[in-house]
């Protein structure tokens, strides 16, 4: 598990390949209960664990997440003396909720580090297929696409001399979203043609390019999660 600097990238890849996406899903389910009923010690433990997991996938993402968490924690600390004010109090609570459920969001980021094909393969094993599988793939396919298109539309607006303005919300919406929606209709048609011609409607058993199996690492993670869950539930009773 511990690797030298030069071989870091290769080893990270191999390690993330070894962890089954379903384990991450399982951890999300377990942690959502742990974070609700557990105490501070369980929270800290789960936070450190997921940050460690994220850094196995991408050091950059983990670093950015730690910075964001520190900023939120810092803001909470700063706002605490002013809780008397209702607005400040409500912002404070919002930040607190974000901090409380941070491990879940981080696990979500870990899940999105897998390629969509790998996720579909994993979900297919537990019987989640068809429309939901397509939905998940389209999600990962489209998130970068939307940002690319918005940049292009922005450039187009600059050239035409059209300006976005908060005082003209309907016009601004028309300028940004109408070309975006037309583009999406176009792309969805091409995409559908493409997957039809790649046999997606074939009535037979589907295989997967990615290997999805349960290894010792997965089992130990789930067991670890269950122990943590047990510890937090035990405190209640």
């Amino acid at each position, binding site marked *: 598990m511990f690797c030298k600097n030069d071989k870091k990238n290769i080893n990270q890849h191999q390690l993330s390949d070894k962890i089954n996406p379903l384990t991450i899903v399982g951890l999300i389910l377990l942690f959502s209960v742990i974070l609700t009923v557990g105490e501070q010690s369980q929270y800290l433990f789960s936070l450190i664990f997921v940050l460690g997991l994220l850094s196995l996938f991408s050091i950059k993402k983990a670093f950015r997440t730690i910075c964001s968490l520190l900023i939120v924690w810092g803001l909470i600390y700063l706002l605490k003396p002013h809780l008397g004010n209702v607005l400040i109090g409500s912002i404070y609570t919002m930040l607190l909720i974000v901090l409380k459920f941070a491990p879940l969001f981080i696990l979500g980021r870990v899940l999105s580090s897998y*390629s*969509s*094909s*790998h996720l579909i*393969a994993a979900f297919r094993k537990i019987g989640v297929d068809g429309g939901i599988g397509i939905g998940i*793939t389209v999600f*990962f*396919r489209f998130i*970068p*696409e939307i940002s*690319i*298109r918005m940049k*292009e*539309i922005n*450039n*187009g*607006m*600059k*050239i*035409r*001399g*059209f300006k976005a303005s908060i005082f003209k919300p309907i016009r601004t919406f*028309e*300028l940004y979203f*109408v*070309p975006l929606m*037309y*583009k999406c209709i*176009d*792309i969805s*048609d*091409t*995409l*559908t*043609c*493409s*997957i*039809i*011609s*790649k*046999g*997606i*409607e*074939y*009535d*037979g*058993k*589907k*295989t*997967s*390019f*990615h*290997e999805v199996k349960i290894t010792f690492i997965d089992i130990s993670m789930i067991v670890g999660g269950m122990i943590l869950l047990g510890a937090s539930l035990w405190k209640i009773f």
Partner: protein
Amino acid sequence: MENILEAEIKSFHYGEDLILKNLKMSVKKGEIVVLTGLSGCGKTTLLRLLNGLIPYFYDGDLDGEIKILGKDITAYKKGELAKYIGNVFQNPKDQFFCDVVEDEIALVGENLGLDRDTLKEKVEKAMDLLGISHISKKSIFELSGGERQKVAIAGTLIYDTDIIFFDEPSSSLDYDSIKHFSEILLRLKAMGKTIIIAEHRLYYLKEIFSRLIYIKDGTICDIFPNGSLSNDKCKELELRTLNERELISEKELIVAKSYIKVNKACIHQGKRTLIEELTFELGKSEIMGVIGSNGIGKSTLAKALCGLSEKYLDVSYGQKQRERLKNSYCVLQDVDAQIFLDTVENELIFCKDKNSESDLEKIREYLKDTDLWHKKTNHPQKLSGGQKQRLAIITSFLSGRKLIILDEPTSGLDYKSMKIMSDLMTEKAKEIPIIIITHDLELLFKTCHSVLMLGDKDYKKISVKGNEALIMDFMDKKGNLLKEKNYVK
């Protein structure tokens, strides 16, 4: 040899419209057949009937029969055609389902139940054949146009499909990528694949095709075996040229007073400097082409000149970004992102804050010249690709700016549409200079007075007339031409 594909179409209707009629064709194994004709002739509909997308995706009423490998196309089970037919669509990026290269290539194998070990082997083999093994784990968003094309083709090699359909494959490629693509086609031909290509650009297929089928008004007008189609015949049928080397410039170099000056402009992309100390001048009625290989910085130059990038540039019409944006207009490659309003006529009317009667008259004239008058109250986003490109160009003409820059205005257009564009540009250039970034040599020779050749950290501006061979050698990357002294100034 048996026919791998047979089509006998008495008629095909889409709603009330008759799209195809009395069409009979057959293709033998190992043939490379090119379907060509003007926009709207029905070749795309024919392609969709042959690859099964009609009726699975597109609607329409067919009176006729299509046979693939001797079996009626409707007799195949849903998705089964993927075992025998591969498809490469017009815009490879839009057709990718997965976000990683090797996943996209493996998709067809997964859908049809190929076991993992065989699938892995086939994916590796396909990537090897096309030379894309080094990008197997890359995201599809980081690929160049040529690389995307290769990934799309690799996907068709997983199931050893006998027939591969290409729908206008060169429209999203630049000059270098088209050359690589024709080499790939030869490799596929050597493997015994049967290839059917719907295409406007013919020059890169000259040595490759077995037969060329010319379609007009929904029916086959003529079939040309390789060698029987001459350039003169192409001109007669209003097709794109078959032999680029025969092209000559139709424009005289004009010596005009300098109207636009660019002085020692440095164009960057991120931290990289793409073009150093670019200096050139444009006369008032000059149309200048810009050519160069893939990645050299042509589109980046366009964005810098029109004010989308580079905070400061020493140009005569605006050194700051805001001034450049106000005084120039750039029609980008993807015109969809520059169309905003609810009707075609509004798109033109809102080019200016206030329109006088003569402005409205100009709008009417442009709409009639570009054959868009009957579509003036339609949604501009619902127009066809060629119509949108024409609309984008006349929008730029009506903008009232000092300089117009067009980035690949004729990619994917047939000869007739390209000629309309060329005439419009020639007419407009009487008032203001136009810069055209293009790898469409036919457009270059028809429209441009001069050309700016961009090399690696070097450039040269020369007249087009008299330097045709030099320009074509430059495009073909023959020698260090930018240092050549013997060119016609």
